[in-house]
């Protein structure tokens, strides 16, 4: 895993773009909104997972914009079944590949398995299936497209919606400041399953994302990558700011970029001097109603979480004792 290194920078290494693979596996012609940060992330994840990969995808924005019969934007073998079960579908694919491989029925290299789902399909309705698949130790990578609400159905809140955000089911009003709870920590939940690789990634740092996905799919066993998917439509931000907002999320510590390898935390993008969270909140209409006390709270909580993360990165102790299951049979 060390051979992939990490992208430690706060802006792109200028000419690295030309060295990245040119072939598009998530083709043009998909119907995402203009400036969709999620589509940008999907484009690069699909390049990173390699040609010999099977994708199981949950119902959601990326599934809908890319698969209206008869048009598909996917060049990979791809299956969509329902909203909450993509991890279970991926488990079935993984098991089938196991038995087909044992029986000598696979021609060519054994394909990788990648499950993809939005924040709703991952941290809410899909949590059970995800937990089951992680616990059973299937050989697959789960990628969560976190645009922080149920965007495809019209911007309703999920457990990934950040505190104070406006959504249609957490609207600000005389008796409400928007989303009442703090964003659920999916990375911690994934780590709690004792899986070998967990990471956060962002379309603000596409090379970091690319190499993390490469690492995730090459890691035997389950891997989980949580991708901040900037959504100008739901976040009420300008369409041309999607990459910039993703970068601001990391620069303000709202969405730090790190990986957890065998339970050990490591920042992959260092931010020597953090920016205030209001730099991140201001360009987004979904936070427009927030006043000083709420912004203050968000600032304090963000820093507290970040401090804890930094402690974990420094800690000599991993989150779990390494589990290396003995081979049987």
């Amino acid at each position, binding site marked *: 895993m060390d051979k992939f290194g990490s992208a430690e920078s706060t802006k*792109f290494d*200028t*000419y690295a*773009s*030309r060295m*990245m693979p040119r072939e*598009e596996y*998530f*083709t*043009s*012609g*998909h*119907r*995402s909104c*203009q*400036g*969709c*940060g999620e*589509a*940008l992330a999907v*484009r690069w994840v699909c390049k990173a997972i390699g040609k010999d990969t099977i994708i199981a995808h949950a119902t959601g924005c990326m599934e809908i914009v*890319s*698969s209206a*019969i*008869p*048009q*598909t*934007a*996917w*060049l*990979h073998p791809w299956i969509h079944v329902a909203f909450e079960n993509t991890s279970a579908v991926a488990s079935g694919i993984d098991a089938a590949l196991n038995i087909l491989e044992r029986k000598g029925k696979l021609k060519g290299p054994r394909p990788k398995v990648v499950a993809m789902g939005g924040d709703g399909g991952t941290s809410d309705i899909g949590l059970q299936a995800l937990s089951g698949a992680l616990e059973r130790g299937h050989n697959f990578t789960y990628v969560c497209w976190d645009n922080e609400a149920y965007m495809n159905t019209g911007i309703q809140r999920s457990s990934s919606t950040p505190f104070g955000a406006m959504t249609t089911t957490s609207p600000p009003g005389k008796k409400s400041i928007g989303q009442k709870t703090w964003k659920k920590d999916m990375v911690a939940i994934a780590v709690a399953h004792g899986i070998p690789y967990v990471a956060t990634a962002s*379309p603000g740092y*596409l090379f970091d994302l690319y190499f993390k996905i490469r690492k995730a799919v090459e890691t035997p066993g389950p891997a989980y990558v949580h991708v901040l998917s900037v959504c*100008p439509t739901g976040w009420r931000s*300008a*369409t*041309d*700011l*999607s*990459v*910039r907002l993703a970068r601001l999320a990391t620069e303000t510590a709202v969405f730090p970029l790190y990986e957890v390898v065998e339970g050990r935390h490591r920042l992959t993008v260092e931010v020597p001097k953090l920016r205030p969270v209001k730099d991140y909140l201001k360009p987004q209409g979904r936070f427009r109603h927030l006043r000083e006390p709420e912004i203050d709270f968000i600032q304090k909580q963000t820093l507290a979480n970040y401090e804890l993360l930094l402690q974990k990165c420094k800690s000599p102790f991993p989150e779990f004792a390494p589990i290396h299951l003995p081979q049987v049979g």
Partner: protein
Amino acid sequence: MSKSWDQWTWQEIEIGGVLTEPGSARAYNTGDWRSSRPMWDKKRCIKCGICWTVCPEAGISEEPDGYFDMNTYCKGCGICVKECVTGCISMVLEGE
């Protein structure tokens, strides 16, 4: 299938609704959506390829001379303008 998909008979639909042509979405020209388009100032462009990297549509392609330009799929979101290192891209209204 030369017939438009909304005229298919039930017998003409693939079993299970499976789509057997990967990437068939390329038939849909998302460029029809845009109301403004990016324009490159080649005198300032350093051919770094960052614009190509950040386009959610894969709507930017490299030209034979190494410069980059939008292709037919560009939706006009403007991310490339904001991310360009030299600031050589600007948005102009369609039709100008």
